[in-house]
């Protein structure tokens, strides 16, 4: 009897378990597809239908199933936004799927859940759920290139820093004057795309800005010495002067 009763309880648990596994795993046919690419230590998001790239903040429409296609650029990561679904690995060379759906607009917090190297702790995620109309507007905004700054402005000086101090090696920016765009080829070392940087409310693996800190303050700390903020950071200390950092921030903040 002491064997049968636990076995029956377990059988009772097993049925809904199995049903839920299938229900939560498979993407529906009308789901929006978003590619999630893991990097040490940030998440990149690619909207293949709109050909939009963004980083750290994943924007999705509410009341709409989203099918995340997960893969990794380096090691195994694990995408987890607890309020939207469970975890799923991002595996280099393979693609996994995860269903996400937000019923309410708002910000959802997440984290990489698989140990992925030195700064695993600082690889966080943010999902922003927008009403469908707002989402559409956001997507169109992201599709548009940004304006090349006019000479003589601080933004222009910042752009010059971007060009001359090494940033262009890793960061893509798409300008309205297409021949000026800096497209980092996929096989090269990639940092987050900066085209609409200012449209994201968090950066650096969704760890900055910290509570009570402005974006500019956080950026200033970060640009002064990335490896102290994110140990092992692939973005090196570029030995920028204070003026250069201020100019760079002015330019980045203008790319809404």
């Amino acid at each position, binding site marked *: 009897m002491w064997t049968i009763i636990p076995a029956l309880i377990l059988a009772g648990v097993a049925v809904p378990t199995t049903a839920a596994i299938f229900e939560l795993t498979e993407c529906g046919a009308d789901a929006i597809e978003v590619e999630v690419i893991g990097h040490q230590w940030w998440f990149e998001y690619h909207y293949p239908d709109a050909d939009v790239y963004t980083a750290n903040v994943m924007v999705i429409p509410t009341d709409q199933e989203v099918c995340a296609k997960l893969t990794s650029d380096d090691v195994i990561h694990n995408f987890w936004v607890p309020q939207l679904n469970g975890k799923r690995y991002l595996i*280099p060379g393979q693609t996994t799927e995860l269903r996400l759906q937000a019923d309410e607009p708002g910000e959802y917090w997440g984290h990489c859940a698989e140990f992925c190297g030195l700064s695993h702790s600082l690889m966080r995620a943010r999902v922003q759920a927008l009403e469908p109309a707002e989402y559409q507007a956001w997507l169109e905004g992201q599709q548009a290139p940004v304006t090349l700054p006019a000479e003589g402005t601080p933004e222009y000086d910042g752009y010059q820093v971007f060009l001359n101090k090494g940033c262009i090696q890793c960061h893509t920016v798409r300008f309205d004057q297409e021949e000026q765009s800096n497209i980092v080829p996929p096989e090269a070392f990639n940092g987050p795309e900066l085209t609409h940087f200012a449209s994201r409310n968090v950066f650096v693996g969704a760890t900055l800005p910290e509570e009570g800190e402005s974006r500019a303050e956080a950026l200033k700390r970060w640009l002064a010495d990335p490896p102290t903020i994110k140990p092992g950071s692939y973005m090196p200390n570029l030995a920028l002067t204070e003026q250069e950092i201020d100019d760079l921030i002015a330019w980045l903040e203008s790319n809404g």
Partner: protein
Amino acid sequence: MTATVERPQTTIFRRPSAKTGIWSWVTTVDHKRIGIMYGYAAFLFFILGGIEALLLRIQLAQANSEFLTAGAYNALFTMHGTTMIFLFVMPASAAFMNYLLPLMIGARDVAFPRLNALSWWIFLFGGIFLYSTFIFGTSVPPVGAGDVVGNLAPGGGPGSFNWLASSPDGGWFCYQPNCGPLYSPGTAMDYWALGVQLLGLASLVSSVNFLVTILNMRAKGMRLLRMPVFVWMSTVVAFLLLFSLPIIAVALFMVTFDRQFGSLFFAPVGGGDPILWQHLFWLFGHPEVYILILPAMGMVSEILPVFSRKPLFGYSAVVFAGAAIAFLGFGVWAHHMFASGITPVAQAAFGLATMTVAIPTGIKIFNWIGTMWMGRIRLTTPMLFAIGFIAMFTIGGLSGVTHAVVPSDWQQTDTYYIVAHFHYVLFGGAVFGLFGGLYYWFPKLTGKVMNERLGKLQFWLMFIGFNLTFAPMHWLGLQGMVRRTWKYSPEMGLEPWNLAVTVGAFIIALSVAVFMVNWYTSRRRGADSGLDPWDARTIEWMVPNPPPEYNFAEPPVVTRLDHFWHLKYDQDDEGRAVRKPLADQVLAQIEHDQLNPKQPIHLPNPSYFPMFMALGLPVVFYGIIYHESLWGKAMILVGAIISLAAVIGWAMEPLEEPHHEPEEDHEVMEGASADG
């Protein structure tokens, strides 16, 4: 038999003969001495692993703490896990098995005494090899953009290269490709892979030894179903080791080949599969969990009947449930990988298989409670630990069932909820069991009894500290605190519970300090135990405390389960146990007989060669790590020569030194069990 004496003696290969001093320990093949050495070494590593845990807890006591660097934190949690599993719980279990198995089955030693010494030395040198990474290892971040852009500041961050961070930092699970050559380019992970390889080899050798011992060396009448449950669980563990260690051995060699010789088993860039590593690792790793817990279950099954003064309830059910847990344990490994994107069918299958483990585990828990039910319970320290074991293990078992519910596991996996779960089964389970065992068999070891007052103080400190440490981890995990995080954000509201956890960890440390004081003082000034301090049931208590080198002067003849108990007790008409009037005389007679063998006793001779053979292996492994240099190649050669020379010496040394005893000695062995 006589051939052994006629073997020509040479002066090169002599058996060592020291009876005391350091050489007697280096060359010993006595299972009791080897058990003691295993025990002390395991305890030392327990302290090291504990210090690592305390450092981790200081770091996590506050949000965004700067106490440790990220590199040091990652290294410490890797070494904490590796140490507690491979260098503490496994060798501590091996210590008990070594010491107790021959005594419990009525044998004079294990089947292969020199092989037993070899296991011990490989373990010790493997542990030293692994820990030498703190001195020699290097752990550097992968080649980053800084190196691409030009000669800019390296991406390590300040302090990342301190000495703590020079140890393995890829996790005890060593997930690929993060701990492969591309993303962990230093030598630290090589120390890890080869060190664990050595430790696994030590366990593999002893598993064969224990199995042969248990199957072949039982005293007359000690049928399989009369063996103490601890012996049974050791048998099951030996089978688990035998079948699971080769898997990890192969997988670790693949890791070493990937790292050292550019093979691409697990590297996606070359078409390798990082998930294959996870399958191999957990195919070993899940049985490993039962390797850690089953010996403690065996100990608890010995302690509970003694202090409940009742036979174990459902002896055969407990034995077969243990075997069933082990069998099922091979079919559930992928529940560690529910987030890895394996198909829903596979997830459902492994989820259901995992649930079935709850059934035999439940049988055991019911039987333990049934053993105590209506018993005349004596709440001694070992009994407190055994009861603590049942309670804590049940909590851990129940949270284990929640992992089998796959959609729930998708939330729990890789959070502190998992950390809470496995500490409830491995600390609340295995470690409580081990401490209970230490208190229970301390008289066997020393002839003294440990101080009860300090023992109870230790139990309550550990029980409170343990729950304060690990219970809040459940809530932290459900609040979203992921594992292996060096920093967490203050916005998440995790600080109060994390502080409580850190306080709890220090209470555990305090309880261990109390234990050490108790051990030290009781060894020196403890009360004399006599032959039978606990009114025990099993035959290891039929030899004096501490046992003479030969264990049994006359190997016992076992007539039933709990043989020793039945020598002392009869049943009255109502089925109650009544102590025989002559019980005390029987005990005195036993002690006298065991201390005064009627004939000289033939024992295996000590040997140098197990130690030397084990010594060559880490030398080869150092050589493999540095094989690109001439020194490395030379070390491989030197190590191989040491080990091979030891093999030759082992094979060629005489089975015994010429001795002065008459030839009939050999017949004593055969005929010794004539009267029990």
